[in-house]
């Protein structure tokens, strides 16, 4: 229940890091962005989003700051750290390699 149904944990981390790399966002905004970019393909329940964010923060990849929102409420905004950037680069490269390899294999089967 706490895990996204068809997402590996590492993939969710990668997505979140990528989203936060563009600009600092609060949790709610992250959930909107997540839906926006992935459509209905990647389903992440709101309940499991926050533990994932907290984990990234503990790892030192993102950092959090309380800031007022546009409608003047306090919200916790997450942004990427230097360490997070490095990690994102590494993980993106890994992901590209992995997905290329997998799609190659899949195509091979089809041929």
């Amino acid at each position, binding site marked *: *229940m*706490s895990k996204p149904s068809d997402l590996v944990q590492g993939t969710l981390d990668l997505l979140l890091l990528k989203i936060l790399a563009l600009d600092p966002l*609060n*949790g*709610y905004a992250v*959930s909107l962005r997540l839906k926006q970019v992935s459509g209905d393909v990647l389903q992440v*329940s*709101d*309940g*499991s989003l*926050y*533990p*994932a964010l*907290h*984990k990234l*923060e*503990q*790892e*030192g990849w993102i*950092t959090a700051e*309380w800031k007022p929102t546009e409608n003047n*409420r*306090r*919200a*916790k905004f997450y942004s990427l*750290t230097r*360490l997070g950037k490095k990690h994102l680069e590494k993980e993106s490269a890994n992901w590209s390699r992995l997905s290329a390899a997998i799609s190659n294999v899949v195509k091979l089967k089809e041929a």
Partner: protein
Amino acid sequence: MRPNHWSHTLPLRLRSLFRRNQVEQDLSEELQYHLDQKTQEYLAAGLPLDEARRKARREFGGIEQSKENCRDARRVSYIQDFLQDLSFGLRLLRTSPGFALVAILTLALGIGANTAIFSVIHGVLLQPLPFLKQDQLMMLWEKDRSGTRSNTSWATFMDWNRLNHSFTGIAAVSFWSPTFIGTRDAETLNGFRVSSALFDLMGVKFAEGRNFLPSEDVRGSNFVVILSYGFWQRRFGGDSAVVGKSVQLGSRTYTVVGVLPADFPSVLSFDPRKPADIYTPLAYDATLPYACRDCRHLRAFARLREGVSATHAEAEMNQISANLFREYPTEYSASGVILTPLKDYLVGDVKTALWVLLGSVGFVLLIACVNVANLLLAWAARRQREVALRAALGAHRTRMVRQFVTESLLLSLLGGGFGLVLAWSGVVLLQRVRLANLPRLQNVHIDAWTFAFTFGICLLTGLAFGLLPAFRASKLDLNESLKESGKTTAGRERHRLRSALVLADVALALLLLTGAGLMMKSFVRLLEVKPGFDSSHTLTLTVALWGPKSEDAPAVAFFDQVLQKVQALPGVKSAGIVSQLPLGGNLDMYGVHVEGKTLPNPEEDPSADRYSITPGYLRAMRIPILRGREFDQRDVATSPWVALVNESMARRFWPGENPIGKRFRMGDTKGPWRTVVGVAGDVLHRGLDAPHTLQIYLPNTQFTDSLVILAVRTSNDPASLAAAARSEIAALDPQVPISAIATMDEVVSASVENQRFGALLFLLFGAIALLLTAVGIYGVISYGVAQRTHEIGIRLALGAGRQQVLGMIVGEAMRPALLGAALGLCAAFGLTRLLTRLLYNVKPTDPPIFAGVLLLLIGVALLASYIPARRATRVDPMVALRYE
């Protein structure tokens, strides 16, 4: 944690740990913001506020679960959880003080008893002796004809030293009882003459001064002493300038050359109650009469050479011994040596007993664990709703198991804390009251090792009794538990578990009680033994003469004066003097060579205990004269030499003959003949559990000792006479040391104190086991009955008789109890043989004890289940049916 993360993550973690409220608040606010935004979104889509809120929540999933996962993500949660569990556990315990008290006391008893026994074992058996490479240190004995170890003589010792290649050195030791002349009083010391090599052999580091020099181990230059640490403290106040000072011992002046370290165990002393005070060089030479080859009064210590095994050394020494036997066929009774590791020699006698005690006290702890597990199960069952609620609110199962285990660890640590206090008082009591005569007792402390041991068994017991209930409690059906309110019809599984606990309790208790019963019976049998004398109304004290007074004639005259004075005291019936007191720890043996019955090798003739007595001694001790006459005024130094023999000796040498008038020689085959004038009753000398020995009494006029025991039979309390007797002797000579004042009853009692100690501890453990088992069964049954109140109500309402219901409940309790008893019997049958060496005149499978213990336990189990069962059947069916 990788190092490059520290700067960033450490503050976060510290914040999580120490600013918990802030962190929790932030978390709530963060999630609330999300929900609010979501609600706004749906409001904007046109939903009513209620609907919008509900939808937002539903979409989010379990809020509490999400929070818990966030806390988990913060990683420090296990510390927090632990602290939280701990305070929760403490709060819970405070709400059930009865439960907490019973559990903690049970554990304190179990852990305390184990800690105490462990500290004794650690101090006595496990801790190495303060000697260099102690495994190389051996005691070296001659082997006599019966294959037992025997002291050696100066001549043999010198040959061993000269011929062996296995040892770096051999040192010899003999007893020495010098009289210390203080400024105000005199005192008989417990001392030893030792080879100058002895302390170097052991690798002793002196507290002050040095070891003896080889040049001091020579007759004539040997007036030097080394003090024990205790004697140095007691008589010299630990004066660091004592080295070089002189001490007056008897009529000689000695120079102090060294002081032994505080931790030097009195390895040379027979009797742990009398540690050695002082040492002087052995300084023998071949011209001394007691340096002969068959004058066996020396004990030998040896250190194995590097790389030489004990077996190898023993083989070599056996060869040497065989050669000596061939060379001197009439001065040995057999060839061969016995090698004993020094440590075994020191503590070998109590080793078995201590390990058996640790084993049995381990069973006490097991029973305690079973009982507490049982309490926890019942407690957990009462907390079902709380557990279910927590599970429903998103607590993980592992998290809940952790909570339960934290609680049981809390219990076991609290129990362990009290247990340590118990153990500490036990050890202090043991050392102060000297309940037991254990070697190295001063070495027993509640120290870091004990703490580690206690902490270890706390953790183990906490897990042992905590895990089972924890798993049981966390594995339950949420819906069921939330719905029902404790009105459980006893689940089959839970019932089985409780039965298993009753079974284990009874089996363990039976095992322990059997051990206790056997030890008690053995001890009672020991006390029933007739020592051959009447110990009641008898006072004994030791008198030691020194200087010119210790010569034969003046000594006899002085003792005569003492006896005259003492006999004149009011209440004195008879008084006498003896050289060695039965059961008093001292002993003097001589080979007996009977006229016409001496073997070709006189060394093969048997030995007898020798006593020098005054005429009144046998009467004072009420040792019967079976034939012939007592000694009297006729038996003086110049009259014909006479002797009394005991019954065993008469039977051994003159079966069916009249021993009166027969002659024998003592020790030396060329010595004077002594004529038997009477037969005295057998006396147990070495212990109540020792076999009878051959015994010879001589008039003290014909064999005089300077260190003797005065025995006085009184018509009133013998202890009340002590002061008067002492002042009569002091009036004759204030510089005669008097020591070891005790009634004969005390002497007998002291001789069995280890057996008493063992029996007492076993009894104590057995009693604790019985108590815990009774409480355990009572607890299980009353809990089971309470849970079945409803069912019992139905049965009663449907017309079941009270007797029937009573029978049913008791029967259900007795089934596991009987099964446990059967199992316990089997276990006891197998295990009590470990006690064999500790039992006197009792077989380890003694049927009356087994039967008695079985009946006792069944009785206790019946009673413990009958009481709650009867209470249950007294219930009004209507009340029972409404019982929630």
